[in-house]
């Protein structure tokens, strides 16, 4: 009897959660880590032996991007910018959306520490305003917004490790409550040459990859992006 109740109660809870959140879809993914670059799960670039910041530059050149501001960014912003470029180029139907209705939810472990250390070294000589401006993790979001003209809600969270469940909850809230129509979410972390970015484009229509946007799927895409 108790087991029956628990089983049914669980079913009720699952249904309730489904009602609370409509289904949204991962339409594209991109990832950059350990010398490998993937788009929608397919390997696009497996490196040229360079590492860290040099690898990011080789990536920029390999894909023939042309965005002079790239060169002045810190490593975290470069990494996020490149991952967003790969995620959105060719596939994102931006014209279908108002600027105010596209947003970002990103997270990482090391905040802006890679640039913080560089800035603090510069203070010993002459403090560098161009390094100081990148001593905040959300500047990578600002760079992506400037590049693509996104003006919707955005937030940067710091997490010990990638919390797929939390990210899914946040993005679902934004899409369910009519705050955004499309959201880019994921992880962008760069610390002393060690880095990883995994981005997801989440939309209300089942296009592109058309993966159901849920914790399991988000976590599995993250985990294979090594």
């Amino acid at each position: 009897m108790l087991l029956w109740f628990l089983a049914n109660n669980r079913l009720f809870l699952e249904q309730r959660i489904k009602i609370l959140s409509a289904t949204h879809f991962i339409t594209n993914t991109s990832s950059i880590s350990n010398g490998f670059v993937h788009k929608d799960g397919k390997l696009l670039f497996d490196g040229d032996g360079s590492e860290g910041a040099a690898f990011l530059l080789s990536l920029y050149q390999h894909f023939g991007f042309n965005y002079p501001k790239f060169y002045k960014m810190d490593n975290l912003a470069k990494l996020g910018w490149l991952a967003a470029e790969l995620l959105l180029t060719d596939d994102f139907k931006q014209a279908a959306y108002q600027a105010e209705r596209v947003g970002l939810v990103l997270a990482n472990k090391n905040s802006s520490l890679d640039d913080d250390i560089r800035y603090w070294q510069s203070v010993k000589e002459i403090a560098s305003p161009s390094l100081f401006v990148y001593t905040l993790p959300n500047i990578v979001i600002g760079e992506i917004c400037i590049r693509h003209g996104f003006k919707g809600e955005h937030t940067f969270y710091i997490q010990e490790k990638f919390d797929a469940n939390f990210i899914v909850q946040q993005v679902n809230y934004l899409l369910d409550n009519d705050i955004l129509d499309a959201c880019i979410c994921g992880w962008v972390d760069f610390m002393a040459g060690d880095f990883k970015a995994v981005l997801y484009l989440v939309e209300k229509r089942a296009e592109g990859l058309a993966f159901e946007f849920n914790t399991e799927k988000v976590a599995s895409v993250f985990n294979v992006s090594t």
Partner: protein
Amino acid sequence: MRNVYVIADNVFTPLGKTTAENFARLKQNSTALKEYHNKSGQYFAALFEPTEFLIGSSGYTKFEQLMIVSVKDALDRSGISCTDDNTVLIISSTKGNIGLLETEALSPALQERIGLSGSANLVAKHFGFRDQPIVVSNACVSGVVAVTTGMRLLRTGQYEHAVIVGADLISEFILSGFQTFQALSKQPCRPFDKNRDGLNLGEGAATIILSTDKKHEGNVRLLGAGISNDANHISGPSRTGQELANAIEVALKDANLSAGEIDFISAHGTATPYNDEMEANAIALAGLEIVPLNSLKGYYGHTLGAAGLIESVISIQSLKEGLFLATPGFEEIGVSRPVNVIAQQTQVRAKSLIKTASGFGGCNAAVVFGK
């Protein structure tokens, strides 16, 4: 969706250790700003005395101790338990333990310590929070965004209570950065004034505890929130203010209020020429041009990741006491849209207020509180 009540709070600044102490000092027009000097010159800031809030237990940095004293006072007043799984801890900070870079040799252990999640875990463990704490680090809108995150987790029923703390300390790291930006004023800051010429930095913490428990009906409620990005420049605000206006409009819609129902604005008002100009434009675009507004930066300086929380708590207190605080430093309007800056403390009957903030990375945020 469930109603979200403000059930307890704390403000911990150089002016006082509780919300009541702080509000009493503000009513007397006391300011925490003082003159200091470093190798780059003279500046005004609102800083703690070196041992002002040390809690005497080893193992916590100043930043962590500051959060602990603020959370403890608010928790003691709230009547909630943080050791059940209905309560979440949310932390807001821009630079946390960054001051450690100045005094300690770089090591993997130090990196862990500067990473905000390390501090968040220590604070969570100190109080016995069950779930992983959430950390927001979104420049100067962090505090307002943390409150927004808490509101949503409660509205959707994921938690019943949210303990939201914001804190930042002013280290040489932060000071030198703002100095290289030439963003600091050499006098007490003058928000929205004709002669404003920059901001002052400040240290502090604040905590807000939110709850959906219906027994708190009648308390001030958190009614809505909006966040936006300028998509214009990483260190300068929007030219038009349209994006902050958008965040305000989203927050009003979320609160189910019209612009005409807002009784006062707690502005960001850093007193940099560009911020205040943009903010005045945004306030006018959002239809709030005649609504009384203040900036608390002349009392506390810019407390970065704590600012959204300190200014929200003080404004909630204003709502409760029916007393709008003055804008120290403001004399003559110096922005192109003639927004209604309050120069003198004013008694009013108010039902709802909006708190705005903007920051590096082009971020804007607004939250609405009401009775």
